[in-house]
């Protein structure tokens, strides 16, 4: 850690180009927020919902001064606002938010005063007209800004699932550009990226594999969430260490006014949630637990084995330390177990298991000495994955990390500056074995340090420019990996043009045996370090991506929103499992480059009680592998292929309405076939390198492939429908739901083991009922 800090200081002080760029960015960021006014006052605070203490995001805080001058700010996801550079004097403070009564008060600010004003808004009638409501809306299927989309719990609840435990995972699969392998496996590929290239954060805590083995579910049920920001690319400098996407989940706080709870039951999962004040107005608890019932419930409904078990436990404490600071702590545990194949020919099925542990402490504050908001985090997370028999797994992988981070926002007049630093210590261990493979064991410990600065310039009304620079220090080399990033938004009337460009690096690799049509076991390893002995062309290079996004969005009327967005990702220094005809998992890496490009088109309609959207995504992903043997095998130095997540066409349609008091939702999804490698046949191999008696030489089985990823799996499509209604039972509410998953019983392929021809299909037609009871 000390070495890393020295390295960082040395780099900033270094007279080379990288050091100068970093120093200049830091200086520029600070210059942007230097006060230009003598003894300005500052107003800041937290805004919450009075009924339950939840932080309210996007509340407008306006200060009306003498002469009609208006200053203002908007709350962030923690409900924080800060209005800097105020002249001393009397102000009328007005805080407004949809669905809440406006807060109006008068206050006097003395010269240089830093005043904390916390506001608890009272739920009530909105005083805003419809047009304003539309402009304030921040989520929705077509509401995408330069790759970023905000997801609210209500958006999630509209997607039909086999139970009432609405889950973020179900929603994510409706997004164009998000490719799931089906209703099991727990892997998401976002705009050409691999699952291991997605950064999934829960209140800033890294969660490695949050998606459960049954694809409807993740560790994020909707009723625990405040909001989720999904960055399909082009994400800002605050995020790093991954090159594809960011799923930034914010858990809500427990109710700090009264105890409430809920329980759900269905043939798929049972869940319970409880929340309430441990100290009223000061300390709240939110706790949840879920356990799958698939093996005992859903299995009977479909009359076929569904050997899946999963569950998660979540708890969050949120406390008010002082008027200007909050602290929270969370812990999340998940477990998954599933048998992805079926027994055939005496070959036992392989069971995959994984469990996550994620825990963290977060402290947010609005210091009184300067117009800045601070976010301090410490976290630990871990993922353990195994494949094979429970007591003797043939493959296992473990990754864990300890993370310390600080983020700060410096508020200026027309410019806010985000800056931060983080240290992550990562440990890796893997043991790989198999029916046709020797045991291979690896252990690594890595330290990642990062600093960033990202000012946001409000150039004109509706025109915002965010320019960031992140310096990422990985173990693979001394020099930092510099990551300049830009996000630009230009909104005028109902139109919005947005764009993002950025550079991203990742040193941790998640390797899958992609020769399987739908492999889910991932082993975590790292980019090779430089060695003094042998020259290794891969050493010292981290995976790199350059993103470019350009999007247009229009809201021509209150009921219609359309958007179109194109993206391009150039990938380099990718390390993918070396191509081999040995039927074994390998962590021998081969370098590769890649590119992914495509476009999304979305139409969203809100018409009375009718809500619906259609989105279409086109994407093309291509890798070029660089393996020395390729010249011998194929006569070319590089091998161009479409990786197994290259879904060319994707269509999602959702319609939801209320009919005769019933909430009805239907969703149809379509995906074109994914690439896979056909085999010509299977034989064996013996190395003939000596005058040997071949009976005494060990042999191996071998796959005779046609050509890597030369074919495509069948198309995938499915229709899901759900109907639900809520009944009041005194203070409690009972919701009943009926659903049909895969209504027309499409036989969608989930897993195809090319080695053994074992095929496992996704869920057939599944009728399901669920109930949920909430109190109060």
């Amino acid at each position: 850690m000390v070495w890393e800090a020295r390295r960082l200081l040395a780099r900033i002080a270094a007279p080379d180009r990288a050091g100068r760029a970093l120093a200049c960015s830091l200086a520029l960021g600070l210059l942007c927020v230097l006060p230009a006014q003598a003894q300005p006052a500052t107003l800041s605070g937290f805004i919450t919902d009075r009924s339950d203490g939840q932080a309210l995001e996007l509340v407008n805080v306006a200060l009306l001064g003498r002469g009609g001058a208006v200053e203002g700010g908007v709350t962030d996801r923690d409900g924080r606002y800060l209005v800097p550079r105020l002249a001393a004097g009397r102000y009328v403070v007005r805080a407004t938010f949809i669905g809440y009564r406006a807060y109006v008060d008068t206050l006097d600010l003395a010269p240089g005063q830093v005043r904390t004003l916390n506001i608890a808004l009272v739920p009530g009638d909105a005083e805003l007209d419809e047009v304003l409501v539309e402009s304030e809306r921040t989520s929705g299927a077509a509401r995408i800004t330069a790759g970023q989309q905000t997801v609210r719990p209500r958006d999630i609840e509209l997607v039909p699932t086999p139970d009432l435990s609405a889950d973020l995972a179900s929603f994510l699969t409706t997004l164009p550009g998000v490719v799931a392998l089906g209703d099991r496996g727990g892997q998401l590929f976002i705009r050409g990226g691999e699952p291991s290239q997605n950064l999934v954060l829960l209140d800033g805590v890294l969660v490695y594999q949050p998606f459960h083995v049954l694809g409807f579910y993740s560790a994020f049920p909707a009723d625990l969430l405040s909001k989720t920001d999904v960055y399909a690319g082009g994400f800002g400098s605050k995020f790093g260490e991954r090159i594809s996407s960011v799923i930034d989940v914010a858990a809500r706080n427990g109710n700090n006014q009264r105890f409430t709870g809920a329980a759900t039951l269905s043939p798929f999962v049972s869940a319970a949630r409880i929340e309430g004040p441990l100290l009223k107005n000061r300390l709240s608890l939110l706790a949840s637990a879920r356990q799958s019932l698939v093996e005992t419930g859903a299995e009977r409904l479909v009359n076929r084995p569904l050997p899946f078990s999963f569950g998660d436990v979540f708890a969050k404490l949120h406390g008010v330390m002082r008027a200007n600071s909050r602290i929270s702590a969370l812990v999340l545990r998940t477990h998954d177990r599933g048998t992805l194949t079926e027994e055939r020919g005496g070959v036992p099925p392989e069971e995959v298991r994984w469990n996550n542990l994620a825990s963290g402490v977060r402290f947010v504050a609005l210091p009184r000495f300067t117009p800045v908001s601070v976010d301090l985090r410490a976290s630990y997370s871990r993922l353990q994955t195994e494949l094979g028999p429970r007591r003797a797994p043939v493959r296992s992988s473990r990754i864990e990390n300890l993370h310390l981070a600080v983020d700060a926002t410096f508020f200026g007049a027309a410019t806010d500056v985000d800056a931060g630093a983080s240290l992550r210590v990562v440990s890796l261990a893997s043991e790989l074995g198999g029916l046709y493979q020797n045991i291979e064991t690896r252990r690594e410990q890595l330290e990642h340090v990062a600093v960033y600065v990202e000012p946001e310039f409000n150039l004109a009304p509706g025109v915002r420019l965010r320019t960031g620079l992140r310096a990422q220090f990985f173990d693979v080399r001394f020099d930092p990996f510099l990551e300049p990033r830009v996000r630009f938004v230009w909104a005028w009337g109902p139109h919005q043009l947005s764009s993002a460009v950025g550079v991203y690096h990742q040193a941790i690799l998640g390797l899958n045996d992609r020769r399987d049509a739908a492999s889910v076991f991932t082993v975590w390893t790292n980019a090779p370090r430089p060695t003094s002995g042998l020259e290794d062309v891969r050493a010292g290079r981290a995976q790199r991506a350059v993103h470019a996004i350009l999007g247009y969005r229009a809201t021509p009327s209150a009921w219609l929103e359309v958007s179109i967005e194109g993206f391009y990702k150039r990938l380099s220094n990718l390390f993918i499992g070396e191509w081999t005809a040995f039927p074994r998992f390998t962590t021998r890496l081969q370098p590769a480059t890649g590119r992914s490009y495509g476009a999304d088109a979305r139409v969203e309609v809100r018409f009375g009680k009718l809500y619906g959207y259609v989105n279409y995504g086109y994407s093309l992903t291509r890798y070029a592998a660089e393996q020395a043997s390729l010249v011998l095998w194929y006569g070319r130095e590089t091998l161009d292929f479409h990786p197994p997540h290259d879904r060319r066409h994707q269509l999602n349609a959702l319609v939801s309405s209320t009919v005769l008091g019933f909430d009805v939702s239907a969703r149809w999804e379509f995906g074109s076939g994914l690439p896979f490698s056909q085999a010509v046949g299977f034989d064996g191999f013996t190395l003939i390198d000596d005058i040997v008696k071949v009976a005494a030489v060990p042999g191996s089985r071998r796959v005779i492939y046609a050509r890597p990823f030369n074919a495509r799996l069948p198309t995938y499509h499915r229709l899901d429908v759900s109907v639900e209604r809520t009944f009041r039972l005194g203070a409690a509410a009972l919701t009943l739901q009926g659903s049909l998953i895969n209504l027309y019983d499409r036989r969608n392929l989930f897993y195809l083991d090319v080695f053994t021809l074992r095929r496992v299909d996704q869920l057939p037609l599944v009728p399901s009922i669920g109930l949920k009871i909430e109190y109060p």
Partner: protein
Amino acid sequence: MHPLPTKGRTGGCVLLLGALLVLLLGGCEEDVTAVLGTEQPFSMFGVLTPQADTQWVRVFSIDDRLEPIPPTPLDARFTSTDLERDETRVWQDSLVREADGMLTHVFWAPFVAAYGRTYRLVAQRSDGAASHVVVAVPPLTDMVLPAQMEQVPPLFPVRVVGAAPNLIRIEVTYRYRFVSPGGIEQEEITFSYDGRQRRVSNGWLVEVNVAQDVRAIETLLRERTAFDPIVGVKVVRLTIRLIVANEAWQPPGGRFDPDVLVQPGTMSNVENGFGFVGAGYRLERRWVPLDTLITGRRF
């Protein structure tokens, strides 16, 4: 003017359309072809050598799925024919259990492959499909060490005299002694001379650079132990071993890398099938080098 449809009729039409759509979508099932299959029946791996009284070849059937080989006879008749004498032998099947428990078929025949002869090996399935390979055994050659007067430091010329088509696995092994804190120790080290042979008028020439190899040994010893460089190393014995191989036995790039050679078709000489059957024999000579060679100094 057409009458407007009633609400009931509209609902019925929607339901009917929906049902049709469901039937249509549900009916268009797609199968996936994971294994294309091949007419090629077998893969074969082995070496014919005049230095053994029994010849062995491992035979794999090319299957449409990857499953453990069952403990039953392979549906194959394996023969070898001496193309000069037109003599055909039928080989015996045997099941061998690998270290990991897997079974594999190894065919064998009790004969000595003759120098300079060519054999045709055929594995034929009961339906007539066959894989075959023609294997030429290199003619007899000899390894000749130089007379003392030919030993011009630092090179020690070793000749393979005769019509050897190819040399592979050329290895020079040094047995040496050195003084360490623990006393006098003796070790062996092997250097690869692959790719350092060259054709000459009467065969092949391999020039062993003893002085360079000894310097490499001393460097290794310095890195590893408290080796005394003043005393140096004393080479007790040199051994040169190589394989006189047929033309086909040449790995791409000169290296026997299993991760490269495993790719079907790489260094393969089996027709209508996969695999490689080579032919060759070992030559080996030992000698004690002169000190002038070790130091690299001329007389």
